[in-house]
């Protein structure tokens, strides 16, 4: 991994059209501004990891379940 030191107000460029700017540093928190084309998907990594985890969990347990059973439980609460 490339590691760079930057100060508040300084930027780095990724390719020609992505700018990552350090806005503010306070204790262990850094505020970052990003300028990027609209088709570049920007996500907090922990959120993507969480969605991956939930998806994997969703696949494992399904062999034990029937849609009819789910519907029955669901309709009881309706």
């Amino acid at each position, binding site marked *: 991994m490339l590691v760079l030191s930057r100060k508040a107000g300084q930027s780095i460029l990724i390719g020609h059209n992505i700018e990552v700017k350090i806005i503010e540093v306070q204790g262990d928190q850094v505020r970052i501004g990003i300028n990027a084309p609209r088709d570049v998907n920007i996500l907090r990594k922990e959120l993507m990891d969480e*969605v991956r985890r*939930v*998806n994997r969990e*969703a*696949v494992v*347990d399904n*062999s034990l*379940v029937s849609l009819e059973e*789910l519907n029955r439980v*669901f309709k009881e609460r309706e």
Partner: protein
Amino acid sequence: MIIESKHFGYIEIPEEEIIRFPYGLYGFEDIKEYVLLGKVGNDNPFMWLHAVKRPDVCFVVIDPFVFRKDYSPSINEEVLRKLQVEDPSDIRFLSIVVIPQDISKMTANLQGPIVINAKKNIAMQVILDDDKYTTRHYILEEMKKGA
């Protein structure tokens, strides 16, 4: 076309029902084709989303509006472009369901909905940057709250 399923054996499905996921699902990026099973001729809000070429990959999905009538995911232009949406009324949403041993505690992922262009059968999973939604909403509890 015949698809092979670990749970259902061999199932014949019309080719035009295949839904393409050009980016896969998170954690399953290499699987690009799924079909929806169990949706015909009943009022069951749950369906299977089954991988076409992977007998072992199958999810339970639900129409999120069935238990959260106020669900309002905001989808940006980029997603519409990627899904080749021409008419917004072609868009459908599905949430992936996690079913624990106690199935009354099943949860749906409202923060990472599957967005489908129903006209062209192209879909992708979108992660919403929205505090209102999480990856685990208790379906039965929220159903009760909304009723």
